C-alpha cells in the first residue's frame, strides 16, 4: 500500500462531509476521470461564513482524504479565510502526502476555491 500517514488513512476510511447540498450557494469541480481524480465541492454560505461544505470525489485514497480534510478545514471559516487555504496547507494538515500524489491528488483547495468563486459570481449577478 502507498505510504500514507495515519491521518490520510483516517480521512480515507472515515471521510467527513461526503455528499451534495441540494440548494448549494456555490459549486466547484476540478480534475477529470481520465487523470484519475475528480473532486466536486458544494458550499452553503451564511453571513460570509461557510456554514456547510460537502464533497464528492472520484479518485485514490489520497484524493478522498484531501477532499475530506479540506471540507473540515473550510467549514465555519469566512470566505476570505477559506480562500487562503492552499494545497500545501492541506498536505501539511494530513501530515504529508507521498511525493507522486502531491500534484494529481492534492486538488481539494482548488475545488473549494472554485465553489467560492461560483458563489461570488452568483451573488454579484443577483
Amino acid at each position: 500500500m502507498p505510504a500514507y500517514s495515519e491521518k490520510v488513512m483516517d480521512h480515507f476510511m472515515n471521510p467527513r462531509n461526503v455528499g451534495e447540498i441540494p440548494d448549494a450557494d456555490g459549486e466547484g469541480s476540478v480534475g477529470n476521470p481520465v487523470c484519475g481524480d475528480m473532486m466536486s465541492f458544494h458550499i452553503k454560505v451564511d453571513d460570509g461564513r461557510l456554514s456547510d461544505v460537502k464533497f464528492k470525489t472520484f479518485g485514490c485514497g489520497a484524493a478522498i482524504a484531501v477532499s475530506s480534510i479540506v471540507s473540515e478545514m473550510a467549514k465555519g471559516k469566512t470566505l476570505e479565510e477559506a480562500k487562503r487555504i492552499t494545497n500545501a496547507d492541506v498536505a501539511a494538515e494530513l501530515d504529508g502526502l507521498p511525493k507522486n500524489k502531491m500534484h494529481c491528488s492534492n486538488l481539494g483547495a482548488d475545488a473549494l476555491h472554485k465553489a467560492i468563486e461560483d458563489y461570488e459570481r452568483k451573488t454579484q449577478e443577483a
Partner: protein
Amino acid sequence: MREVYLDHGASTPLRSEVVEAMIPFLKEQFGNPLSLHRFGDAPRQAVEEAREKVAALIGARSNEIYFTASGSEANNMAVKGIAFMNRKRGNHIVISAIEHHSVMNAAQTMEKLGFEVTRVPVDSHGLVDPDDVAGALRDDTILVSIMHASSEIGTIQPVAEIAPLVRDKSKAHFHTDAVASAGTVPVNVKELGVDLLSLAGNQFYGPKGAAALYIKRATRIMPLIDGGIQEAGRRAGTENVPAIVGLGVAAELAVEDLEERRQHLIPLRDRLIERLTKEIDRVHLTGHASQRLPGHVSVVVEFIEGEAMLLLLNMQGVAASSGSTCTSRALKASHVLTAIGIEPGLANGSLLLTLGRENTMEDVDYLMEVFPPIVDRLRQMSPLYKEA
C-alpha cells in the same frame, strides 16, 4: 481477520519444497560454481540440475536455458541481444501493442538507437491477429516479439499460429514473453515454434531473483552483461545459486501438478468472473473470456478508482492489484487497457484478482461478501455515479 491473497500475478508464495532445496545453498554450500576446488562442486552440479528441470518444463534442451535475475532481464536480453546481433541484417522489430514494459521499453530503447518498431494492434479481447503480424513483416525484420499471455488482462495469444507465419515469411527471430504463463499453462517451445522464450520462477511458486531465457540452439545473441564465462558467456556474473535451485524445483513441481492446478483454478476463476459481473452493476471483464490464464480475473468497475478499491480490500484482508493510473508509479494510463479500447476514465477502475493453488471457493465467496459494499461505498462518494 481472514486473509485472502489474490495477487499471484505479482508474486506467488514459495512451495516449501522450494525453500527446503534452497537452504543448503544459503548455508554450507556457499561456493562459487566456477571454483575448481570442492566448494564449487555441489553448487555447479545444482545449477546444472536446475537447468535440466527448467528445460523439461518447456520441452527444451538444458543447453538452451540461460538463467537471468528476472523475467524483465530475460525479455531485455532477448530483444536487445537479438537486435544488436542482427543489426547488419536489418533494423526492424515487430511487437504487439500490449507487451510487458520490459519488452515494450526495450524495443523503444532500440528505436532510439536507430531501429524501427512496428506495434501490432490487438482486438477488444486483447488478441493479436496472426495475419496482422504477417502483414507487418519486412525484408529487414530481424525480431518479432509477441507475448504468450498478458499479466494484465490474462489473454493467451495464438503464438503457435503466429510463429510459422514469421518463419515462412521472414528471416526474423521469434521471441515470446511467457513470464505470466510458463509453469501455469502448458508451454512447449517446439509446439509454440519459438526461437526465444522468457519465464520467471516467482510466477510459479519459486523464488524471486531467478528467471530464464530459452535460446534455441544455433541462435546468436549479443550479451547484455559481458564478463566471465557463466551461462556460456552470454550472461556473465556469479550465479544466484540458491534462487536458481529454487527455480529448478519449482519447475519440477510445475511439471508434476500443472494440470491439477489448472483444473482447480479454472472453476474458481469462472465463478469469480460470473459473480463480479452479474452481482455488481456495471462491472466489465477485460481480456478474453476463455483464451485466458487459469487463475486470472481482470475487470473494470465503473465510476470508481482502483487504488481506493485496493486500500479498502486490504482492510478486509484481501490482497489485489490494479492497472489504474494512480496505482502505477509512473502515473500513466495502462497501455494494455488503452490498446483493448477501454477509455481512460474507465481504465482507472481496473481491478486485478489473480488466484493461486492455495485459494478456494470460500475465498471467492469471501471476496464477493466484502467487495460489493466497497464498490457501493466508493460509488456513493463518486461525483460520476448516479444511481440508476
